[in-house]
């Protein structure tokens, strides 16, 4: 199945947190939850270039990513997309990704409510992001999907 299949796109549009599996240069596995945007046939996962996910993608571009619809407990579809990814630190790209991410995850009633409830954590959050910036640059893991398949959710 291709990623532009309507059933795959339906999951991609409704999923909020992707879980990306990667391999290190010596073949050790990892898997990390990341926010993502589906953009013109690409999947952009926002992170920073010092993180394990980004370092692994630089070492081995093959990735396997799971998507599910977290907010609908009656929909048990799990979509797995495999493909090749690259790490993009271009300022214009990550700034666009920041804007799209803010629109998806913050500038919604639920997103704003989450921030308002945790208002006291906004300053620590800014320090946390700045701390990340001292370690490296923000980046986008740019995934070009090659294969999509549905897995049976088995809980």
């Amino acid at each position, binding site marked *: 199945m291709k990623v532009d299949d309507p059933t795959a796109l339906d999951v991609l549009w409704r999923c909020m947190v992707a879980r990306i599996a990667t391999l290190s240069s010596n073949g050790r596995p990892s898997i990390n939850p990341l926010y993502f945007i589906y953009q013109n046939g690409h999947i952009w996962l926002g992170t920073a270039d010092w993180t394990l996910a980004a370092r692994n993608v630089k070492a081995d571009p093959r990735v*396997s990513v799971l998507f599910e619809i977290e907010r609908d407990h009656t929909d048990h579809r799990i979509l797995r997309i495999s493909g090749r990814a690259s790490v993009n630190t271009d300022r214009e790209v990550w700034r666009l990704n920041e804007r799209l991410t803010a629109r998806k995850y913050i500038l919604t009633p639920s997103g704003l409510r989450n921030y308002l409830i945790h208002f006291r954590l906004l300053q620590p959050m800014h320090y946390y992001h700045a701390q990340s910036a001292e370690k490296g640059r923000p980046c986008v893991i740019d995934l070009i999907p090659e294969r999509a398949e549905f897995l049976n959710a088995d809980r």
Partner: protein
Amino acid sequence: MLSILINRDHIANASSLPPMKHITRDIEPVDAHDLLERVPRACLSFASDDGPCAQSIAFVWRDGRYLVDIPETANRQPAIDQEVVLLIDEGVYFFDLRAIYIRGHAKPSDTPDAAPAGRRWFEVIPLKTVAWDYGTLREVKDES
């Protein structure tokens, strides 16, 4: 207000901030044990000939053991003793994001009580466990 929420220009100019504090999201794994009991989302990662494999799983935490069932229909399975990473996470919005991340090895296991028979269960023997909770972001003593 919105600029507070989404303006991350300071990422490119961290030196404009006051002296850096060390902020952590990390929590003790024991404080994420509720995830092991509720299992909001569970998945496993391992290497295969085709690259990394992310696999949705059924998970049971029984007597401190991490028991994992991969559907027999899955086209890829971890080998015995192969290194795997188990991730159990929850949350959608930033301050709700929590996870426990367990790196270990896969060992064959008996079927847990009350689980469907005739399935292939593994136990993840942990080597390293970390957990995080963005709702607990806080300053800690800088150990660097």
